[in-house]
């Protein structure tokens, strides 16, 4: 049956992508000049003794030949061991595990809600020209904004000038994460600004995407046909909407897949303890293992999201199904 072949093909492609991405990820830092251990030691203490450097090279397994490092890397990978961060002095997996919830807390609602709202607004704009004339420039303006700049504006206006909301960290400094009411309240109040900064900017691009798709679909033959047969505007929109939303669903899934990469710049502005900042710090400090670990997680989740979308599409989009049953 075609579906099986389709799946096998997908799995092979994703497998190759995975191996390629991971190898690239392993290779890149090792091609670069500079000794990260020395940088690490010298940065904290001023001058590095060869004793310390040797000690750390051994700890991180950097004294082994390249092929062995590569092999170890894969072996460890399948044991769920992502290595040990030089910067944070902790297993990479545990660092990521502790940072990830914050990314999800901000990005999941921001992506999903902006998707819903953006599609809704975009669909309206797509079919209503009068409304479109006013909203479209706004959408484009929103989509054009560097989201970290908008975040800065929010911090400055809402946080600093008006003093309405906290704008730094994920919760008040005197709290320890727990399921207490105090903590939840504090968490939510710290959550609003970073959330809004992403939510509002994202609405712009979703709305544009939806608007264009709707316009495109409303021009499609099947809609013209419906119209010729006296379908109401509502019915045409319903049909167009269904087809227009499919690419948006792909977009949503991809965004969700990339969620684990965090929103680097936003996290910088708000001092939010997410993965984005981890990646940045690791990058600025040449923390191989953390960088690789974080990158790996990102690649895996993006691939997973893509894969999932491929499978889901095989069921929800008859066009995809038709394509593989034919071949």
């Amino acid at each position, binding site marked *: 049956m075609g579906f099986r072949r389709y799946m096998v093909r997908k799995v092979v492609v994703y497998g190759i992508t995975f191996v390629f991405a991971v190898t690239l990820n392993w290779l890149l830092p090792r091609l670069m000049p500079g000794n990260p251990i020395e940088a690490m030691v010298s940065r904290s203490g001023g001058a590095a003794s060869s004793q310390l450097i040797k000690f750390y090279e051994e700890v991180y397994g950097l004294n082994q030949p390249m092929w062995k490092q590569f092999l170890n890397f894969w072996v460890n990978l399948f044991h769920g061991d992502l290595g040990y961060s030089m910067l944070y002095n902790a297993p990479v997996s545990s660092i990521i595990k502790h940072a990830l919830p914050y990314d999800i807390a901000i990005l999941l609602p921001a992506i999903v809600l902006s998707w819903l709202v953006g599609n809704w607004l975009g669909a309206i704009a797509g079919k209503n020209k009068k409304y479109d004339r006013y909203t479209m420039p706004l959408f484009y303006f929103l989509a054009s904004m560097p989201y970290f700049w908008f975040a800065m504006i929010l911090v400055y206006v809402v946080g600093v000038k008006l003093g309405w909301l906290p704008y730094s960290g994920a919760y008040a400094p005197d709290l320890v994460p727990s399921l207490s009411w105090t903590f939840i309240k504090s968490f939510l109040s710290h959550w609003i600004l970073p959330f809004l900064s992403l939510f509002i900017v994202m609405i712009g691009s979703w709305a544009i995407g939806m608007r264009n798709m709707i316009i495109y679909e409303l021009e499609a033959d099947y809609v013209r046909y419906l119209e010729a047969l*006296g379908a109401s505007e509502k019915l045409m929109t319903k049909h167009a909407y269904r087809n227009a939303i499919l690419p948006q669903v792909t977009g949503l899934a991809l965004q969700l897949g990339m969620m684990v990469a965090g929103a680097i710049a936003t996290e910088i502005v708000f001092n939010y303890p997410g993965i984005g900042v981890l990646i940045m710090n690791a990058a600025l400090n040449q923390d191989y293992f953390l960088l690789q670990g974080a990158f790996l997680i990102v690649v895996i989740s993006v691939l997973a999201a893509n894969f999932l979308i491929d499978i889901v599409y095989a069921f929800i989009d008859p*066009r995809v*199904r*038709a394509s593989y049953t034919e071949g």
Partner: protein
Amino acid sequence: MAMLTVEDLKIYYATPFGHVKAVDGVSFEVREGEVFGIAGESGCGKSTLVHSLILRKPPMVHMGGKALFKGRDLMRLSKEESRKIRYTELSIIPQYAMNALNPTKKIKDIVWDLAREHGHTDREEVERLLRERLKMVKLSEKVADMYPVELSGGMRQRATMVVSTLLNPDLLIADEVTSALDVTTQRVVIELLHHFMREGIVKSIIFVTHDLALLDKIADRMMILYAGKVVEIGPTEEVINEPSHPYTQLLLSSLPRMGIQYRKQKLRGIPGYPISLLNPPKGCRFYTRCPYALDKCPSEEPKLVKVGEEHYAACHLLGGEDQ
């Protein structure tokens, strides 16, 4: 009895450069129980004409004339009235029939969505009818449960024909439905249209094509358009056998005939291209290509002249000053 009477209809397109006069004062009528053919080169306004009957959307603008369908002027109906008539009384099989069905909806769902919009309440009844008709056009009943993408091109074409005629419209417009098909499928389509007429599913058909040979087989009467104007109109047989207008003649001579060998009949194309409809000449629109052009052709517009029983043509060669 006339199903549709079109009088001096003018349909223009608004463009940044001015109005394109796609249909410019066309009159004809379609009678109950007949197949009325409309022919012409591409760009002559035939599609514009039939589409304007169904739906006028920018940049298409109605600049005058009437189209009386069962007594109501289609050009003056309110949006809602017009919407209600469509499908139930006036339906179309579009040129793009193969892609006319939403690829991501099952055919039965598409039909039900449409039927409900026109006041049907019994879903099973509609589906039963659909299956019956599908069988009638030699498709499997199961097609109703399939997605259009799962069907081959020809099957989709037939499915679209079934969908278009499901609610037994009085007048069916078939817009270039055969253009993209091979000869055998063309035949099937034409037979189907005949079948629809015979079964009383549709009462009249407007058949639009650029293929005169095809019209010969299906149309009772026909009209030839050139650059938005009627050049000749009359019973099919007469028009085909005794074409009066030079354009019709040229058109016909460009057709190969069955049974006549190539060597014996020189095929003749029509030299030149149709004129721009943005600023058409005042006089005859065909004079630029007409081998018999007279002095007055560029400046004076020829009127329709009666050349036979119900047979008219618009050419200065036919006189007609008196008309």
